[in-house]
């Protein structure tokens, strides 16, 4: 068996450390926001997870294209890893956002453009996994996955534009102001430190998880191959 690379172990440890520091910065170090109070602290991790979630979806679409061009299975593993890790992070973003929205907007959920787009995007990537699950042939699975990741990556921004249109013309949902204006605040330098560190920390964690998932994909493939050899 292929043993775990040392660099990956180091990255694991670094991830845990930066997560700890980011938590400290967000929960203790950053000053309490004047209007919203402590619940605003959710914001640091909310943006952090959203950032890596979006990066992952862009990476998935790009690696989908790369797979279709090169037909190299490594791109497929990369794409699955990106979608899987990002779907999880994005889900965390939505949950954290809801936790914040309850006191700030007085509701767990509104059909605001960002929220709606997030929900639709999440659904696209759940559909992505259902699609992959239904196909046995690895090549075909990779091809279809790449095509669907590409379609999803293209349609999500258009969804955002379309829904923004809906809500700005129908001012019934959350008023005329945009989402930021509803919970907007200006950051102090300490908040900015916590904010940027959270972005950095989640980027590291994202890379770590991607690495793990890609490695897992490779191992999975190996197991499948071994099983085939045994049955022959």
């Amino acid at each position, binding site marked *: 068996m292929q043993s775990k690379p040392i660099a990956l172990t180091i990255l694991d440890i670094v991830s845990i450390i930066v997560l700890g520091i980011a938590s400290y910065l967000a929960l203790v170090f950053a000053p309490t926001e004047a209007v919203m109070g402590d619940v605003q602290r959710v914001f640091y991790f909310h943006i952090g997870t959203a950032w890596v979630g979006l990066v992952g979806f862009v990476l998935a679409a790009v690696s989908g294209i790369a797979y279709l061009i090169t037909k190299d299975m490594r791109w497929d593993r990369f794409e699955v890893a990106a979608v899987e890790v990002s779907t999880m992070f994005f889900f965390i973003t939505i949950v954290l956002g809801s936790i914040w929205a309850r006191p700030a907007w007085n509701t767990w959920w509104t059909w605001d453009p960002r929220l709606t787009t997030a929900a639709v995007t999440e659904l696209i990537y759940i559909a992505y996994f259902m699609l992959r699950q239904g*196909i046995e042939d690895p090549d075909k699975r990779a091809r279809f996955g790449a095509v669907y990741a590409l379609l999803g990556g*293209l*349609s999500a921004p258009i969804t955002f*534009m379309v829904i923004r249109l809906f809500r700005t013309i129908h001012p019934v949902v959350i008023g005329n102001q945009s989402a930021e204006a509803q919970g907007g605040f200006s950051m102090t330098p300490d908040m900015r430190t916590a904010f940027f560190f959270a972005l950095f920390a989640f980027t590291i964690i994202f890379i770590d998880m991607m690495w793990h998932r890609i490695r897992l994909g490779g191992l999975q493939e190996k197991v499948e191959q071994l099983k085939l050899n045994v049955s022959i």
Partner: protein
Amino acid sequence: MTDTTKTTSLEKQPMEYRPSFFKATMAIVQKDLSAEFRSRELLSAMLVFSMLVILIFNFALELDIKVRQSVTAGVLWTTFAFAGTLGLNRSMAVEKDRGCMDGLLLAPVDRSAIFFGKAISNLAFMLIVEAIVLPLYALLYNEVRIFQPSFLGVILLGSIGYIAVGTLLSAMSVQTRTRDVLLPILLFPVAVPVLLASVKASGGLLNNATFAEILVPLNLLIVYDVIFIAVAFMVFDFVVEE
């Protein structure tokens, strides 16, 4: 085209005979349409289904005159989207079932001609259904505002986008284990923009919005159509290759 012309051109260039892209596309459209007009399985199913959906909406939403003012576009588009998936599923399933798709793929034509052929015939079915459902809706609910050219234009643009991405995805979903169940799950989240932009634009037209007001959804609709036709055209090869 007669057999003789075909053979002569074949003799002249034995290896290089390829029907033009347009001809190949039209041949597939013709095949689909004539098969459908003989059996009328698909169209009748889509039509009856559409009427049932509208009937259910009638009671579920209490479509009285005030509600209709705001939801007509939404009801119509939901109906078309549902009926559309029914048609898309069926039109690809018949190709897959008896190995017709393999036959099509063996033909010496560009693969994207198959995509466009299937897309055009799917679009034709959807437009036929719409051409029957819209007047019926107008009749049942006394909604004559439906018959303005710009409203019909929006319906056409929306259908094009929906069918373009739907044809591609149905070609994928028929090759999976879950088949028909999967198509709506794959299609709806990706088609959200086209459905919403169409609802927005057609709803605006029904409520006498000015052209400037519906220009933005209309633009997005056109952008979606162009992007997704282009992408589907480019990736269709990967979806059907064996």
